[in-house]
């Protein structure tokens, strides 16, 4: 006990007083690599916040924290910026590469355009994780996976331990390792993928996430992160990616990248926390379209949808940035805003504004000790209506729009329909569509078909390759991977049927009539140029929304009644048959009498015996005979 405590103290000490030097030393050593891109692996720790105003008064805030530690140091249990708790788990479970996602809400691609990081940092609603494990056999891999999920569920306060064999799949085409592995496709590296669509992500997941940061959310951009704001956002995803990176020169490093992307609804976020109720504003400070002929003091055609273009950090996040994290690489500016250069942005004094060459973004450096604040004034409006696109960076259109929904109704069977729209006028899109479904959705693969909108008949030629692993009841979920293409400027409907099976009544959750969540489909768009080696890594990722599948439910209050009724029915049938088989036939007036008659006769006999002074037996016989005729 004491020894453990001592070692713990030691490690704490070493971390606190040792790493800053390292950081500074490293930063100075890497002074030549200032202008290199963020994805440079040599800088040991840096963080960056990118703010991008979106149409319809939304704001995308992407937090990115990255730290490296050399593999050798990692092997030697010498974690520097690398969170020790996580590191030990990874080592224990023999994990080569790990990706963990906590997501909430839905990305509105129609109005917000392409996803941040090309969708590489996001997951479907709930919790999603996949990892490359080092194991000799599948069983060993499963065992290690179990260890990993259990440990991580403890670490992140998420019920990851519910990722059991029915929720785990082994994707074949969808995922490629991001890090440089010596032998990525070797027999002893196993890719496992698990997803919990029903998991609700909330603050208890954020706290451990922040704990992993060197500055623990006390300083730097992480100080903005606060559960109320984060989980009030329209869309947010927390991602943890751990991968080995081997630059051409220098030794391999283990890189952990934590990122949080959130889309805030500006006017919702600007409400004071003590009074969040959106009461109707007083009539006089409503934004009205005065051009309307009927406009009057009591009649107002509202125009506030395009309003709320103005905001400041402390309005949105409730506080300014508390300095910078002392451990961060000073060469990477901590805050960037993506607005056209034409637009004015005020920053707190002491901050240096650096406009990037691409006319659409600027970054700020500011001293480590004092707070930092950004204010974006509302663009000047002509006659109340705002021309949005001049004041925002025009969101780039994504490579593909996907929308998935159920078809049919009733709790017996249904279908899944995915609408895939390719906006590009000339380029066809090739991608891998992956579903991992629960076993009680029995899908009929022979019904899978694609059709192009507006064209009669099927277009199954679009489906190029299908990998299918059918579900086994109570043991394994369905895994379906489809490699297909969507021709330019067209919409493709991908449909298949499934059957809903009824479960044992103990297998239903308490809210059985809500239905079961079906995990999001993962769509991995392959980049077009086939030149990039044999591994065609993902150009763009997106997830559909999750679905709610209603299964038929038994009556949960009935077990005893059912057992009794069914048993009775069987008993009746069996008893009837048995009687007919074993009893012998006699004429109605032959043989011994049955119950009632016998009783009556015995009574009569008694009476006879009482009154007449004669032996009772003849009397019985007599009566008996009389009755018998």
């Amino acid at each position: 006990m004491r020894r453990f405590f001592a070692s713990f103290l030691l490690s704490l000490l070493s971390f606190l007083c040792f790493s800053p030097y390292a950081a500074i030393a490293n930063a100075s050593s890497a002074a030549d690599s200032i202008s290199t891109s963020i994805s440079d692996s040599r800088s040991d720790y840096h963080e960056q916040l990118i703010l991008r105003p979106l149409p319809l008064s939304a704001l995308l805030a992407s937090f990115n924290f990255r730290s490296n530690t050399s593999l050798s140091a990692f092997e030697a249990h010498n974690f520097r910026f690398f969170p020790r708790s996580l590191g030990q788990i990874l080592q224990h479970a023999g994990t080569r590469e790990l990706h963990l996602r906590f997501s909430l809400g839905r990305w509105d691609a129609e109005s917000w355009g392409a996803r941040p990081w090309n969708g590489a940092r996001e997951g479907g609603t709930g919790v999603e994780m996949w990892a490359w494990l080092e194991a000799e056999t599948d069983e060993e891999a499963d065992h290690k996976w179990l260890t990993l999920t259990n440990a991580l569920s403890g670490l992140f306060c998420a019920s990851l331990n519910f990722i059991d064999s029915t929720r785990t799949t082994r994707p074949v085409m969808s995922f490629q390792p991001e890090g440089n592995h010596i032998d990525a496709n070797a027999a002893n590296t196993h890719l496992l993928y698990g997803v919990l669509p029903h998991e609700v992500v909330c603050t208890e997941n954020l706290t451990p996430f922040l704990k992993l940061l060197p500055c623990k959310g006390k300083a730097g951009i992480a100080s903005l992160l606060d559960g109320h704001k984060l989980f009030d956002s329209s869309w947010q995803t927390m991602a943890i990616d751990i991968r080995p990176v081997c630059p051409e020169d220098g030794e391999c490093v283990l890189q952990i990248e934590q990122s949080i992307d959130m889309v805030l609804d500006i006017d919702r976020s600007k409400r004071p926390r003590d009074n969040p109720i959106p009461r109707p504003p007083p009539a006089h400070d409503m934004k009205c379209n005065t051009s309307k002929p009927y406009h009057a003091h009591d009649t107002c055609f509202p125009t506030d949808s395009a309003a709320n273009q103005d905001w400041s950090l402390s309005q949105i996040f409730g506080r300014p940035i508390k300095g910078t994290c002392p451990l961060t690489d000073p060469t990477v500016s901590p805050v960037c805003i993506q607005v056209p250069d034409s637009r004015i942005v005020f920053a707190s004094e002491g901050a240096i504004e650096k406009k990037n060459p691409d006319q659409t973004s600027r970054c700020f450096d500011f001293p480590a000790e004092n707070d930092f604040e950004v204010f974006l004034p509302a663009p000047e409006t002509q006659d109340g209506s705002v021309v949005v696109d001049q004041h925002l960076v025009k969101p780039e259109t994504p490579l593909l729009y996907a929308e998935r929904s159920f078809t049919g109704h009733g709790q017996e069977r249904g279908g899944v329909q995915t609408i895939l729209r390719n906006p590009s006028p000339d380029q066809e899109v090739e991608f891998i569509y992956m579903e991992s479904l629960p076993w009680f959705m029995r899908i009929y693969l022979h019904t899978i078909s694609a059709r192009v909108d507006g064209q009669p008949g099927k277009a199954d030629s679009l489906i190029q390759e299908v990998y299918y692993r059918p579900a086994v009841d109570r043991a394994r979920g369905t895994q379906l991977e489809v490699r297909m293409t969507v021709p330019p400027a067209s919409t493709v409907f991908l449909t298949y049927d499934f059957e809903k099976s009824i479960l044992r009544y103990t297998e239903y959750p308490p809210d059985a009539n809500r239905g079961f969540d079906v995990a999001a489909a993962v769509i991995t768009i392959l980049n077009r140029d086939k030149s990039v080696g044999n591994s065609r890594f993902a150009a763009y990722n997106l997830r559909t929304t999750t679905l709610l599948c209603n299964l038929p439910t038994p009556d949960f209050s009935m077990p005893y009644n059912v057992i009794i009724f069914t048993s009775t029915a069987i008993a009746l049938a069996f008893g009837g048959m048995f009687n007919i088989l074993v009893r012998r036939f006699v004429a109605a007036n032959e043989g011994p009498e049955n119950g009632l008659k016998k009783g009556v006769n015995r009574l009569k006999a008694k009476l006879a015996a009482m009154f007449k002074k004669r032996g009772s037996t003849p009397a019985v016989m007599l009566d008996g005979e009389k009755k018998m005729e």
Partner: protein
Amino acid sequence: MPRLLASALSLRRDPRLLKLPPYLSLLCIVVGVVWLFLLPLDDYSRRTYISENALLPGQVHTYFGGSDQNVFRAYKHETDELAGKGNIEVNDKLESIAKGLGLKVGRQNFTYSSAGNTHSGQNIYAILQAPRGDATEAIVLVAAWKNVKGEPNRSGVPLVLTLARYFKRWSLWSKDIIFLFTPDSIAGPQAWVDAYHDAHDSSRVASLPLKSGALQGAIALDYTRETRFQSVHIVYDGVNGQLPNLDLINSVNHVAGGQMGMGVAIQEMWKHSNSYHDRLQTMLRGMLKQGLGLASGPHSSFIPYHVDAVTLQPFGDGWQDEMAIGRVIEGTFRSLNNLLEHLHQSFFFYFLMQKERFVSIGTYLPSAMLVAANFTIMAIALWVKSGQPEVQKVITEKTETAEEAEKLALPNPHAAMERDLFLPLVLVAACQFAGVVPLYLFNHLSESALIPAFVLFTVLSAILPFLLSNLLHTSATSTTTQQYHLIRSFSLLLLGMFLSSLATLNFSLAFLVGVFSAPLTFVRPCPNSPILKWLSMAVLYILSPTTVVFVASVLPDLDEKVGCGLGEVLRQAAFAWDVTGTYTPVVVWCVWWPAWIVGVVSVLGRPGAGDGKVKNA
């Protein structure tokens, strides 16, 4: 099991029992009808209660109002300009407004053709995506441009737009909210719901461009008046007499009556003194609506898809304004938003006597079942009777005592006569299949031809029995008493079976048909008393399906107007059949009519002397 039955069935040798069935079935009918009239009493009906705890109706403070009134006025100006414009222009305007609110907008075209004329239009709907949720569940707010009576929904549409803007500001929605604007109140919603569940015929109805999750509930607003109102009328009858979950009605009732303090009415009972008479009237109106199975509002089309829905109609002159009904909807939506599971706790089969009293299926089902049972009883009796040889055939001499004589005199089942089933089966089956003809006729003719066709058909169906009975007698073997017994037995068995199955789907329809065809139980061939014969003929013809349909069409209907007329009724029936899939015509033409035909035939019957031979096994 067989031994249990053996004792029961051994009774069938009792002659008294053979006389019993007619009285028994009469008793069934009487008890069934009386039962119905007992229901409104306090001892049989219950107070409504909320059984889904998650709903918590009326527990939240509603904030809709204030400056939203100004917005409402503005939107009302916008929509008033559209009065009389085409469907497309209207939708263009609505789309621009909804887009301005930051909602996702979709459109859908549909074209139905029924009774020769086509009903086409374009739905438009806007989806407010739940701020933090993803598209797993949704609730719908419907505003039809015209309500069922064809009056423009003047205040309803702008109010729904205002509510959309108001709801957008809240971040607490756990389900998407879909605002649906349909050109009319029946075809539009039907097309939309069908397409939402991909149950649509894509040649007539377009698919939806964008969708959300599973529908958890729907509220329709039918708000045509432009002045202040007093109370709100809840319309809840679905297609084919399906009803929404009672919890939904209760929560609306709680919010409107309890929280907002406005009156609540049901079944067009504008003033309801909680008396027996009013309760009975409410219940009977409910039964009539249910029995007809027509769509009574935009909500009706949702209910067959297990989406609980009601329509709210403000009525009466009072001091409540648009904001009040807006707050009612807000409160109801907050309740639906609380739902963790699909509404399943409370009742789906019930009669409302008054806004807060109901009877559940357990209490009222027996009355219909009794009425249906009387047919079955009679069928069994006739079957047994058909097996009985004439008594004098089995009279035996060698009997000691009197009661023994009686006992042996009884025909016992093993000396049952050979029944020849062929003719009865064929006749009954033929009549059943003949029912397809009127069904097809009245659903595929064009409007102009409907009335002549009906008249023609009435005449034919009046003549048909005579033809049939003549056929039965001119046929080589004259039809025997036994065969008449069997004919009636089979037809009554089928009728009883259909009605008891139907009673579980649409109680009222089963009950009405059962009562109308009750005489069929008692009519019998009476060759030797013409008075009785013609009397029963008269009764049958008065209660024939065609007569009933005609009378119903000319009688003044619920709201004291004169009857809408035969053509209108037929047109509506065809429309309901083609668009909403109402199966009432099937019941009338394929269940009731054949039984009636067989009944008349058996009345006309002159059973020949030729009796089957006793078969001694």
